[in-house]
């Protein structure tokens, strides 16, 4: 069922090889290999083969926010972006703070079958910061929750944060903190700086992030617990993280694609598509993010994919909800900001988009080496592809992309999850070749896997 021949692919951008996949596992790597009987073939046409991407920070909006996204549309966007696993944040309605809700999200993800959906559990009941949620029950549920976060809100009370870190350490799970001291960001609308001052938008000072990260690193150090810092946005936070890591604190950190590329200069027209939390900061901050991602102080890129239906963005700035789409543009923004300037090679891309996120959350079958005996879970990337972002054409139900009209490098031409093709792009020269070469194979794969989990419902995704 999940047999596949991938021909002429360049693992980590290296020499071209063929890969034979049986039952979702790589069984042979070499040149001139032929397809197993009845297997689908995928002519990679010299594209770069990477382990499938793992997103530690996704908002799939289901349950409760289906006007903006659901697990079907979000999974499709993820697969088209090269992702094979996503962590779905708990700020849904109802909040994912019980085993019932996380199991529902997990089951829906499995039904759609395009990407492994790992629900993130809430740290506190209702994300309200007052009472610890049943972390153990969620961790031991069928959803096997590995990460807990009150994302969107900071676990502000230092005692609750301390207890959560201590408690989580025994469960082997990680607490992911949205670092924002709410007292310093009351009414905040934008990065506190020159642009926001001129625009009359109340400032979100970088210190509100730095102080919480410093506090949490101290708490994690004492508790010997694993702390993950969500969406780092300020240059000085990086210095806090650097010092904590040097001191042996078990802290990891993520940066979003938008904080690698965009700055608050985008705010001058007051278009809330650029409103996000934490806010877009300065060019100096984006430079610091890139350097920290290159040197490993920031471990991973996570999208903070946050779909919002038009009515939540087509408003005055203050009334708009914060957040932007990210799943289908993450790889391209990373290539644009890190690979093209020479800050990261394809090995590095594999590290920050796949291996480290899987390691931080202890996923056994994601972020694995491209090798015999390993799961065939891949993203196939055309490094020479160029595309123009159009929000209306993205798979998400909402279209709030800040990159509208931008021409970005690198296209995901196919995504493979345990030997099954979960996404293929119609655009780009690479895939055109792959399709004409292996047209029959693809057709077979689709009908072959018709009974399979993903294709039965949502089928193969095309952009």
């Amino acid at each position: 069922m999940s047999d596949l021949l991938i021909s002429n692919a360049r693992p980590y951008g290296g020499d071209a090889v063929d890969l034979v996949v049986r039952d979702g596992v790589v069984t042979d790597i070499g040149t001139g290999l032929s397809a197993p009987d009845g297997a689908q073939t995928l002519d990679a046409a010299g594209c770069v083969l990477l382990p499938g991407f793992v997103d530690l920070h996704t908002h799939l909006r289901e349950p409760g926010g289906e006007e903006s996204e659901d697990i079907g549309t979000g999974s499709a966007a993820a697969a088209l972006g090269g992702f094979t696993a996503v962590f779905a944040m708990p700020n849904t309605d109802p909040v994912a703070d019980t085993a019932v809700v996380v199991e529902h999200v997990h089951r829906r993800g499995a039904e759609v079958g395009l990407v492994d959906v790992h629900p993130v559990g809430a740290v506190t009941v209702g994300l309200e910061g007052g009472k610890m949620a049943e972390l153990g029950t969620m961790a031991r549920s069928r959803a096997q929750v590995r990460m807990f976060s009150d994302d969107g809100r900071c676990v502000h009370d230092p005692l609750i944060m301390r207890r959560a870190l201590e408690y989580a350490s025994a469960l082997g799970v990680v607490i992911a903190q949205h670092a924002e001291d709410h007292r310093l960001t009351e009414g905040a609308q934008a990065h506190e700086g020159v642009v926001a001052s001129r625009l009359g938008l109340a400032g979100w000072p970088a210190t509100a992030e730095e102080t919480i990260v410093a506090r949490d690193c101290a708490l994690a150090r004492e508790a010997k617990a694993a702390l993950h810092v969500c969406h780092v946005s300020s240059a000085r936070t990086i210095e806090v993280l650097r010092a904590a890591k040097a001191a042996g604190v078990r802290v990891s950190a993520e940066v979003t694609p938008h904080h690698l590329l965009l700055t608050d200069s985008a705010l001058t027209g007051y278009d809330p598509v650029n409103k996000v939390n934490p806010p877009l900061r300065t060019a100096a901050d984006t430079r610091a993010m890139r350097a920290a991602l290159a040197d490993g102080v920031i471990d991973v890129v996570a999208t903070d994919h946050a779909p919002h239906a038009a009515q939540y963005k087509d408003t005055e700035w203050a009334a708009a909800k914060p957040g932007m789409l990210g799943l289908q543009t993450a790889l391209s923004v990373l290539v644009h900001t890190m690979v093209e300037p020479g800050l990261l090679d394809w090995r590095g891309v594999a590290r920050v988009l796949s291996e480290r996120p899987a390691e931080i959350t202890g996923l056994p079958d994601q972020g694995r080496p491209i090798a015999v005996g390993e799961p065939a879970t891949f993203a196939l990337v055309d490094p020479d592809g160029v595309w123009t972002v159009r929000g209306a054409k993205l798979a998400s139900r909402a279209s709030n992309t800040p990159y509208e009209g931008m021409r970005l490098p690198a296209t995901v031409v196919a995504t493979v999850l345990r030997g099954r093709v979960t996404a293929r792009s119609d655009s780009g020269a690479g895939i055109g070749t792959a399709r004409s070469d292996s047209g029959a194979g693809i057709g077979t794969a689709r009908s072959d896997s018709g009974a399979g989990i993903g294709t039965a419902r949502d089928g193969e995704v095309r952009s």
Partner: protein
Amino acid sequence: VKHLLSVTDLDAAVATGLLDTSDRLKQALLGREVRKLPTLRGRTIITMFYEDSTRTRVSFEIAGKWMSADTVNVSAKGSSVSKGESLRDTSLTLSAMGADCVVVRHPASGAAHRIAGWADRDHGSTGTHTSIVNAGDGTHEHPTQALLDAATLRDRLGGVAGRRIGIVGDVLHSRVARSNVFLLATLGAEVVVVAPPTLLPVGIDQWPCRVSPELDAELPALDAVMMLRVQAERMHGSFFPSAREYALGYGLSEPRAAQLPEHAVVLHPGPMVRGMEIAPKVADSASSAILAQVANGVHVRMAVLYHLLAGAPE
């Protein structure tokens, strides 16, 4: 100029042109019993106010009426807004009714920009090219206030260029301050901002003004001083310890006003908190131009509506 959203829409020539038109309109109406010009007959101006306002709303309404426009006032209370209608829907509805101009005040910074964007994008559906005038958006700008202040300074000082103007008080939350700093600088004035550090915006060092912590040190060399209103809610935000201490440091008391040069002008955008930011006797003194500001406000707004709806006069 299609919309007036920010003083940065105006260069020195356009701003001066508006002030000149304002002067001519003022002269044209001077001494007339029937204050009615036919300039905007048949044009529709809607004021849409999401915040309480007396002087600005009435000033725009009178400006429209003195030029024979049909003026309609909408307030957030008693409209569809209270039923949860979005700003976009409300503004497009007014455009579709044929509003040639919508004058908007809104608590959100950038609201006028958004409305102008929607009006431009959807004029095919509404059937009207609506001009938007920002009558105060959050803590961003209040461009017609800055224009009327400039008109008043021209009247009293004979010009703006080269004059030293102090702006005192809550600059952080003041749309009046933002519009004035940038417009006065465009017109060639030297602007000095005086405020406690807690009420100064981050990055003000990149604005075209000088910042001073010491009002007393500045007063003797000012040609005009503009006192900003301190809103009651700031008292609870730990921006300063007490109204009393604020008044001691930054209020324009009688002894302070006495340090101003003879020719200096005292401005206040209103509404005033007498006794806190300005002493009653100073507000009512000969150097005070506070009521002249209000009178000029009507003429400046006439000029703005004239330029937007009928084009700049030759």
